[in-house]
Every structure is written in C-alpha cells, then in structure tokens.
C-alpha cells in the first residue's frame, strides 16, 4: 500500500516539467528549415505543451487538496516483481541464446513464479508452446526469430 496523494503529486509535477521542456524545445526543433513549416510545427508542439501544462497544474492542485488514500499496485508484490524480472530477463537473454532456449527457460520459470506446482507438466507444456510458436512464426510465416549469438565463432 502506497500513499496515492504523494504519487499523484509527483506524477503531476512530472507532467508540468514535461510540458515546460516540450514548450522550450518547440522553437529549437527544425530551425534549419523554411519559416512557414517551422512556425506551424512549433505552434502545434506549443499548443500540446500548453494544454499539458494546464492539465498538469489542475491535477497538482486536485492532488494537494484531495484527502489521503492508498493505492494497491498489486495483490502479490513478490509475484509481480518476479514476473517483471522474468520478462526483462527473457528479452535480454533472447538476444544472446536465441528464441528456443530462452523460451524453454522462460516458460517453466514464469509458470513456477505464478504458482504452477507440477514441474514435469510445466516442462511438457513449455516444450509444446515453444514448438507451436516456433512452427507458427519461423516455419509457417517465415519470420526469423532471434538465434543464439553467444557462441558464434566457437560453435559452428
């Protein structure tokens, strides 16, 4: 449980700062090109920045005067964080060890994180899903999925 009020104040300030940065950037972008085009683009960016700034200020005021309340980001913080780590790790290792091995690792690990108990069943399901996705994309649609690059030059 986190105090919603403080989070909302921080987020509102973020939007106000973003609006200010956007407004400041509008005139510097595209300086090298024709005046008419730059002016209309700058006006568009400035309009977005002004509306965002005003909305951010309204949100900030509303957050300050609001009564304190709590926000529950997830029912199970442990599973939530582990799933995020698992997703990030999966994408990161896919670049090095390729789609097949990374998916065969990711699926049972994620199932375990999410509370699936039978290890044997989770391995069988993982092999099935990996094969299905591989056949569908790589063989069926001829979309090249990431291949392992970690042992390139060592293993032919």
């Amino acid at each position: 449980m986190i105090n919603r009020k403080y989070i909302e104040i921080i987020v509102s300030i973020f939007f106000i700062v973003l609006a200010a940065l956007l407004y400041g950037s509008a005139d510097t972008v595209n300086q090298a090109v024709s005046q008419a085009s730059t002016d209309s683009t700058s006006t568009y960016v400035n309009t977005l920045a002004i509306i965002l700034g005003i909305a951010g200020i309204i949100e900030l005021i509303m957050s300050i005067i609001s009564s304190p309340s709590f926000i529950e980001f997830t029912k199970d913080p442990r599973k939530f964080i582990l799933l995020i780590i698992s997703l990030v790790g999966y994408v990161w290792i896919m670049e090095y060890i390729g789609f097949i091995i990374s998916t065969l690792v990711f699926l049972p690990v994620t199932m375990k994180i999410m509370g699936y108990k039978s290890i044997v069943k989770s391995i069988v399901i993982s092999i099935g899903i990996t094969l299905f996705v591989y056949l569908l994309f790589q063989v069926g649609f001829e979309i090249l999925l990431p291949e392992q690059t970690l042992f390139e030059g060592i293993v032919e």
Partner: protein
Amino acid sequence: MILLDALQAVLAYDVLFAIFIGTVSGIVIGGMPGLTATMAVALLIPITFSFTPLIGLSIMGGVYAGAMYGGSIPAILLSTPGTPAAAATALEGYPLTKQGKGGMALKVSVISSFVGGTFSVIVLLAIAPILSEFALKFGPPEYFLLAIMGLTGVISVASGGLTRGIISGLIGLIVALIGTDPMTGMVRYDFGIIDLYEGVSFMPALIGMFSITQMLALTGEKSIASGDIDITAIKREKMPKGMWPFITLGTGTGTIVGIIPGEGATIAAFMSYNMAKAKSKVKHLFGKGNPEGIAAAEAGNNACVGGSLVPLLTLGVPGNTVSAALMGGLMIQGLIPGPELFTTHAVITYGFILSLFIANIIFLVVGLFFAPYFAKISQIPTSILVAAISVFAIVGSYSMNNSLFDVWLMLIFAFAGYFLNKLNFSLSAIILGMILGPIAENGFTQALTISQGDGSIFFASVVAKILWVIIIALLIQPLFVHFKDKRERAKALKNE
C-alpha cells in the same frame, strides 16, 4: 457488382476457414476473463500481416465478433464476465443458472448477440460508403478536428475524469511527435536513437499496454474464473417469449453507441440493460434472473461491433481500442482507412464487412451447440495463461520489424501503462493519441501553412463548425455528469 465480387472473394474456402478460426478463437478469448478483444486483435496482427489482406482482416473481424459474444458464456455460467461488456449479462445470467435455467440464458444470449451483431453490420454496409464519399470533402482543418473529435470521445468516458483523460490523450500525441517531422522531414525527439527515426511504432505500444499490463494485473489471481460447471446439468431450452422488444432495444442502442467515438460495448450493454429495466413489465425480476436483461445487454454489446467500424473505415477515426487495433491491422496491410477503402480497395473492404455476417452466423451455430464447453476453457490456470501470452506478446512485437528494440519498447509501454492505469489514466486515450497524432499534426500544420498562420481556418467551413460543436459537447458531457452526481450525493447526505 463490387458486392458480388466481394461475396465471391469471401466465399473462397481459405477465407471461410479464416473467419471460422477467427470467430472460434474470439469466443475462446472473450470467454477468458482478463483477456480482451483488443489484446487478441493486437496479438493477431503480427500473424495476419503475412496473409492476404482479406484473410488477415477476416480473422481479426471474426475475433472481434466472437469475443464480444464469448464474454457472455462465463458471465452466465460462472458469474465471471469474460469481457467488461458482459458484466450486465452476469447480473441476470448467473441467477438463471442457479435456478437450473443456464441453457435458456445461453440461448437468449447467443440469439440476441447474433441479431445485434448482424443488424449493426447491415448499418455499416449501408452508411459507410455514403460517409466515405462525404469524407472526400474534408481538408486539413477538418481532418485535424476529426482526429481531435475521435480523441475527445475516448477522453470524455475516461474513468479517471476529464483532466486525466486529457493528459492521457496528450501523452499519446506527444509520443507521436517522436521521429521524422512530416512537414520538414527533419528528425526530432529521437534522443540519438536510430530506431526512433521512423517514430514510435504503435503496435509494440498496443501489445504492451493491452497484453502485458493485463498479465501483470493477473499476478496474484489463482484462477481467473472460480466455480464449477456441470455441463450435463445444462439443458437445451426454448427461447422464452417476449424477448424481441428487448433485443430490438439493445440492437438500436448498441449500433448508435458504437458509431459514437469513445463510447464502447460496455456502455452500450449497460445502457441497453437499464433501458430494458425501465421498459420491463416485470421489473422486480431484474437482478434475480430476468432474460430480458440478457437480451438487451447482449444485443447492445454485439451491435457495437458494426457501429464502431463506421468511423474507422470511413474517416480513419477508431471509435474504441478494438477498432484502434483493427486500424493497425489495416495499415499493416497497406490499407489506409478513408474514402480509398471504398474505391481502390472496395473488394477487400466489402469482403471484410461481409465476413462479419459470416462470423455472426458461426458464433450463432457454435454458441447454440457448444457454449458450455467454452466456459471450461475459462478455467485454464492463470500461471499457464500468463506465461504463454507473454511469449506471444514478445514474439509478436519482435516479428513486426524483426527488432528487439520494439520488444524493449513494448515492455516500457507495458510497465508505464500499468503504473498509469493504476493512477486512473486512460490507456485507450494514450493509444488513440498515438494513432491519431500524425493525422492531427498533419491537419494542423497543413491548415496553418495554407492560411499563413491564420487560426480562423479551423472555424471556416460548415463541417468544421459541426465538428467543434461535437467536440465541445463531448467535453461538457463528463463535467455535466460529474456535477449532477455531486448534487445527487449532497442531496442524499442531506436526506440522511
């Protein structure tokens, strides 16, 4: 003649097979609480872009129609709506199941869904070509206002209120600024990242915000649908008498609500349900198992399907997130929504519309004979679902451009989207802002260049004036509702 060509194209065995697969997949996905039609269409786009346009679009259309109906099955049998639009159905459907009348509730649901869905497609077929010709008269100011109107529609129904809705829409419009300036050709806001020269592709954002965010939300849920289903106890029953006025009511309401940008199937279902309640002669039965409520709600949410495609196909303005995802599917196939769809690509477009009729027939047949079995699928453990859908989301994001950068982008949008959603910002408005951003910017900058900086060009034509009236009405509506609620709450407190 074009219609006949389109019909011939749709009746090809591979297209029919695609519609069947799409519709059945839609029923399965719609029947799984936590999975939405938007997510399904978004995940399908990477798969369908290697098909011919008609096959790809027929699968996505089938998924949309099937999912809208599929949500009612677990709502009736397990009191767990498969989609938010089926929540009203659960109010009447589950009490009927407890009374041993689950079979009758399922029949009312599938027939009402079929009628609602079919009628809305007839309306789409009749209105869309006329509206698309009208769109030919639009110039840059009108296109800018059209994009703003589409965005305002979603903002006006954002659950977090008007300001947060506006900020959400602006986030989308600002993200759409990244990449090459359409007027000058200069690269801007790219942070020195080469992959951003072409801008932020909205598909990874769509997949991230509507797939992975839902998977993150499912952490902590053991099984999405609780309860047990005894299929043998569900008897085949006749359609009760007196349902047609309620089906008609839901059909009309859903079609109109679907056409209005921003208003979605959930609003259509609840509006139809409440209207049915007001009209019913047996009001006291509502909440205790009244099939009239199911008839109105299901006809209402399915009628949104055809309605929501009217602004998408004719004006290029997606009315809700599913049609936004469908717009992605159209663009991937090189089909730009607007008048050209009904001229240059008429056979594909009419073929797609006709495929929706077939999708409705397929879910009618499947629903009448196999509905209870689909409810069993909704009981797949969350652990398997989360892992499998994460793989599909990641591979889907990668396969669009064979780029791991897109996958990282998808994860960033997923995590940021989850956080913003928890703070009641609207993910639908963000994604629509991203889609409509280039249309809005092009319209705005071109109009100002034509008028040499004179802003009155945005008020010059009759169409522009009408669009302004709609935009203002859409913005005033939530404020009006807010103050009305406040007054009623104060009145209730005073009475206490």
